[in-house]
């Protein structure tokens, strides 16, 4: 028997699985051709608390369904029963890894509905905090892509430098992971003495890290062979599937709220988000690697341009008795994963009527991931998921 022939996969994978008239794969579990397995919720190859219900034929995925709910605490519902200022400790937990965009969009929504102008210095400090948040998460997510191909070294390098950035957060805000630095009307404090010098020392380490990661990951033949051509997102899926941020920019579509709707001080900063067209896992990772350099450059620009002192908070009513007029708004910013928005409805009371968070993971980890995993090899599941930067709390909030 020719074993090579027996185990050789049909090179034309478009024939598998057999598709029905509704465009869905025909799966008969009783035929013994398929196996259903779960990746997550307890699995090293899953981001956060979610799981993928995979139907496989051999080592090829023929159907994927995303399951969330392992973290559900009803954040949006809880916020309807809290005064506006009390929403902050709840809101920041809607994305643990990068909580500062949560603070900003909640504060921006409240300020928009209440008609509050944020002072100049506070806007600079907010911009700095958001870029620092982007930096600390990119220090994990850029090498994290290598980790999905068993290249764990870069992740350890990144985490070391991330810890130094958390030191800067600690001296600026008092907190390492959750900061609650951005509050309605402004921010909670000015830069501590010597902050810029210490931050610059950290940024020099990031500069070295960028070069080292380039050598470690992007010139690594195993990484290249596995990531190039994997999970390509066609350009025409960007709107139909709701693709944002670096994932869209890897497909050649400019999606960056900092450029399309400049908020805070981004209009005064000189930067150009990186785009490319290959749209595979390698390209998406490469875009984030460029984003890391852009963020370092932005932090340097912000520290050079921002005033040393000034008002950091506009006057607001007593937050415990603050009633905001009836209205609705949608405020957004650019997180490291893409557009991060909040739809808020108020009814004139001291609590929000409705808060709805829209994070990129909501579409990336559901409709898009389900589609991308069809015909993928089971060993590439984690790599594809991480390349979309999914964050489950954004989905089940």
């Amino acid at each position, binding site marked *: 028997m020719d074993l090579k022939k027996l185990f050789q996969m049909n090179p034309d994978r478009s024939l598998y699985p057999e598709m029905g008239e509704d465009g869905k794969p025909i799966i008969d579990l009783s035929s013994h051709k398929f196996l259903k397995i779960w990746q997550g919720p307890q699995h090293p190859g899953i981001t956060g608390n979610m799981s993928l219900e995979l139907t496989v034929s051999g080592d090829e995925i023929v159907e994927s369904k995303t399951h969330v709910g392992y973290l559900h605490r009803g954040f949006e519902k809880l916020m309807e029963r809290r005064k506006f200022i009390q929403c902050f400790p709840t809101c920041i937990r809607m994305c643990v890894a990068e909580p500062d965009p949560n603070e900003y969009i909640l504060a921006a929504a409240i300020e928009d509905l209440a008609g509050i102008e944020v002072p100049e210095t506070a806007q600079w400090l907010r911009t700095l905090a958001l870029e620092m948040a982007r930096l600390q998460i990119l220090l994990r997510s850029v090498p994290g892509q290598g980790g999905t191909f068993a290249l764990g070294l870069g992740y350890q390098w990144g985490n070391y430098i991330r810890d130094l950035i958390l030191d800067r957060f600690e001296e600026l805000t008092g907190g390492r992971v959750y900061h609650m630095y951005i509050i309605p009307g402004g921010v909670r404090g000015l830069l501590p003495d010597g902050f810029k010098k210490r931050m610059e020392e950290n940024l020099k380490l990031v500069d070295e890290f960028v070069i080292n990661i380039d050598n470690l990951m992007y010139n690594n033949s195993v990484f290249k062979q596995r990531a190039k051509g994997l999970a390509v997102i066609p350009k025409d899926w*960007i709107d139909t599937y709701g693709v944002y941020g670096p994932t869209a920019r890897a497909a050649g579509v400019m999606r960056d709220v900092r450029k399309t709707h400049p908020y805070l001080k981004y209009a005064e900063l000189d930067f150009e988000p990186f785009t490319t067209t290959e749209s595979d896992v390698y390209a998406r990772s490469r875009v984030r690697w460029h984003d890391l350099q852009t963020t370092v450059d932005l932090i340097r620009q912000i520290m050079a341009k921002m005033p040393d002192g000034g008002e950091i908070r506009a006057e607001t009513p007593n937050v415990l008795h603050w009633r905001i007029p009836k209205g609705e708004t*949608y405020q957004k910013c650019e997180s490291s994963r893409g557009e991060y928005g909040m739809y808020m409805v108020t009814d004139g009371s001291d609590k929000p009527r409705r808060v709805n968070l829209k994070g990129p993971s909501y579409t990336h980890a559901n409709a898009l991931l389900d589609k991308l995993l069809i015909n993928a090899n089971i060993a590439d599941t984690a790599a594809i998921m991480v390349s979309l930067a999914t964050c489950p709390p954004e989905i089940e909030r």
Partner: protein
Amino acid sequence: MKDLIKDIESRFKTSDYIQKLDHLAFITVEKEQAISLVTYLRDYRKYAGLTLLTAVDWLEDGVFQLTYLLNNPTDYTEIGVRVMIDRDNATMESSHHLWENMMTYQRELREMFGIDFPGSPRIEEDFILEGWDNMPPYRRDFDTKKYAEETYFPRPGRESNDPATYMKSKMYPND
């Protein structure tokens, strides 16, 4: 965006237009014309992206407000289309054929608000809550505190105290 709104008002039964920001407007449309308007915006006015679909429970008025927030990737404007539906007959025409990601929003709304979208794929499947047999929890009349008290039985370490009474008992135990 004013030209767009004028165009919409001439074609559909709309009301309550608000220009919230330079790039963001909200408008209400009759339920029967809602999907036609959303389709028109997508196909003829370049609002190709769906930012979100969500609901607001106006319990006192007996209606749910559905908000379809669409974005235009060419001029970066956004429009929120509001639709009021009867709370007692919470059903809305499905629009899963317009965007691939729409079915996720519709599944969530069915589970969390009890708003049905007949014909939407996997609409019957649990989204976040597995085995939930209570009122849809994001409705305003669902009492989270009462649910927690009834579901999660009291046990040592879970007691809560009135702060004022507790402090008084600690600081002035003899009073």
